């Protein structure tokens, strides 16, 4: 075990995978000399050279489209898109290109690339730099979507994502980069895609959370414990494919569910989790699943306004109490 920050864990994953496999290369804006605006790629251009760690012009649309064909022609590109807010620029390449070829070309190609980005509010970055557009990418067939909430998962999931033969959208969170945590050592310590993690066990209500919201949920669970309520916190980690068994198992135990995601509510990722629970766990439910999400409105700049729209422990507690009422 080593104590690392989330950003360092990501950096270690990139370094290890690049060392292990010469077909892995990185590209993105300011990822070279500067090491990326969140410092995830620090030192890698020095170590691996420009050929494998490329600073790009501001051209997200073409960059993503290039990752797609680079992936189908023998490399494993890892593309950094600086903010999740820019994901719309990548969607044609994901929806109309990356997601279709393995199937429509009848298995002639694989599509091993990773698109790393970071989203989320709370940093005063305003309406164009604070979003979580999880559901837009999770809607696309054949694209895997992961969102680590800890340094250990950041490293283990990124390594798995790079080794995966399908496109993986890797969602980081700007407020997690400085978080420290124990990270298991060893080049081959992977965290599998498609597996949720029960972060805290409980018996009264299941809180299914993603990314930074896992930490708000843990705070909420503490507050609920003080009221004698035992909350289970499940970190979904793999937004798609989703670990349905973990969801079923938890609800079978608690019979109550709260879903927490930092995206907008309507057609958001929490809607899918609620609908999935509807599909598979209806008979186990004592109360409707509650969604704790961003209200359907732009993210405001001013601190008190931004804080008011972000989901947080307090709102999770309130939703849990209402579910149990």
């Amino acid at each position: 075990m080593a104590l690392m920050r989330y950003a360092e864990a990501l950096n270690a994953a990139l370094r290890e995978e690049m060392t292990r496999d010469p077909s892995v290369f990185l590209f993105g804006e300011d990822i070279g000399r500067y090491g990326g605006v969140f410092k995830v790629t620090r030192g890698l251009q020095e170590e691996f050279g420009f050929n494998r760690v490329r600073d790009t012009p501001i051209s997200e649309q073409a960059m993503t489209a290039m990752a797609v064909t680079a992936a189908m022609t023998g490399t494993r590109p890892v593309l950094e898109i600086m903010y999740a807010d820019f994901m719309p620029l990548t969607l044609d390449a994901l929806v109309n290109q990356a997601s279709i070829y393995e199937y429509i070309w009848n298995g002639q190609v694989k599509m091993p690339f990773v698109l790393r980005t970071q989203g989320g509010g709370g940093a005063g970055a305003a309406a164009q730099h604070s979003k979580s557009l999880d559901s837009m990418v999770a809607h696309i067939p054949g694209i895997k979507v992961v969102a680590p909430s800890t340094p250990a998962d950041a490293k283990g999931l990124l390594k798995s994502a790079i080794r995966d033969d399908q496109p993986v959208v890797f969602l980081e969170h700007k407020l997690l980069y400085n978080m420290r945590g124990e990270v298991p050592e060893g080049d081959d310590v992977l965290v599998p895609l498609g597996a949720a993690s029960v972060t805290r066990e409980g018996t009264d209500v299941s809180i299914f959370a993603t990314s930074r919201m896992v930490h708000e949920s843990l705070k909420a669970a503490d507050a609920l414990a003080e009221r004698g309520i035992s909350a289970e916190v499940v970190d979904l980690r793999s937004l798609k494919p989703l670990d349905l068994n973990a969801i079923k198992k938890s609800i079978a135990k608690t019979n109550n569910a709260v879903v927490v995601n930092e995206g907008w509510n309507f057609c958001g990722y929490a809607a899918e989790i609620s609908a999935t629970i509807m599909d598979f766990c209806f008979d186990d439910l004592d109360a409707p699943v509650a969604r704790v999400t961003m209200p359907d409105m732009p993210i405001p700049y001013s601190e008190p306004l931004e804080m008011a729209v972000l989901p947080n422990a307090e709102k999770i507690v309130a939703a849990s109490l209402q579910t149990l009422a």
Partner: protein
Amino acid sequence: MKNSPSIDEQIEIFRKMHVVRQLEEKLGALHKEGKTRGPIHRCDGQEAIGVAATAMLDDTDYVMSTHRGHAHYIGKGLDVYPVVAEIFGRTTGSCAGRAGHMLVADASKGMIGGNAIVGASIPAATGAALSNQVLGRDAVSMCIFGDGAAQTGICHEAMNMAALWKLPIVFVLEHNQFGLTVDTDMQSPIDDLSIRAAGYGMPSEIVDGNDPVAVYRAVGAMVERARRGEGPGMVEAKTYRLEGFSTSDMGGYQKDEDIAAWKARDPLKVAFDQLKAEIGEDKLKTIEAEAVAEVEAAFDKALSDPFPEFELFNASAAYSEVV
């Protein structure tokens, strides 16, 4: 002359152009009988570009095509039979009927796809060139695209990166005078789109797209340059789309005199005239007849092939366990 096709190459180009023309005419006829499915984009009159531009490439070189890709497919070495079978959605199609005519691929030949998102072939080809460069392979990548596609944002982004990184890629612009139905002057304020190459410090050349030898020479020079690691180049081939935009085009906007003028310079005629002195008219007519027969046979066979059966595609699955 350097970069000129050999006589054998010219003959092969001539043969493939006839395969393509026959393919297009058969598709047109079957469409009239209501036997095709979905919109089909014929390239009659443009065969010289797709076939000659790809003639000097190896199977390890990559080509990205558009919605109007039949000449590119055949040029890059795909047999006509799996292409026809794909267009008719049969299990024997290049992609087992899953792709349809706009998206045909044969990775073993380096044909990595028709692409029906206009402009998308440009970064696509650039990405393949990037992977050649990253891995140090000496293969090149070629992007064939239209005058309409040249107006898309990704065209700019991709060409800029290709030139910036000296990627091994050749951009071949098929200027057929139309976007979907709009004339070229409704799409951009300039006639010669290749002047934009200067904005990327990239060499460019304009050629008669109905002359396969001219296309071969111009593209060949750019391919050699790219293969030597000297970076990308662009060839703008001027031509004309003799048929409608697609089989669903209701027409009415192409001028008769334009069609007549371009038909007089039909690339099949140009190719014929370029070869007849050297190898004789009879030989050429035989080659043509063989090409026609090959296509006829491909249609006969493909049209009696079975349709695929549906299977869920598990790799897209939403849940990590089987539900």
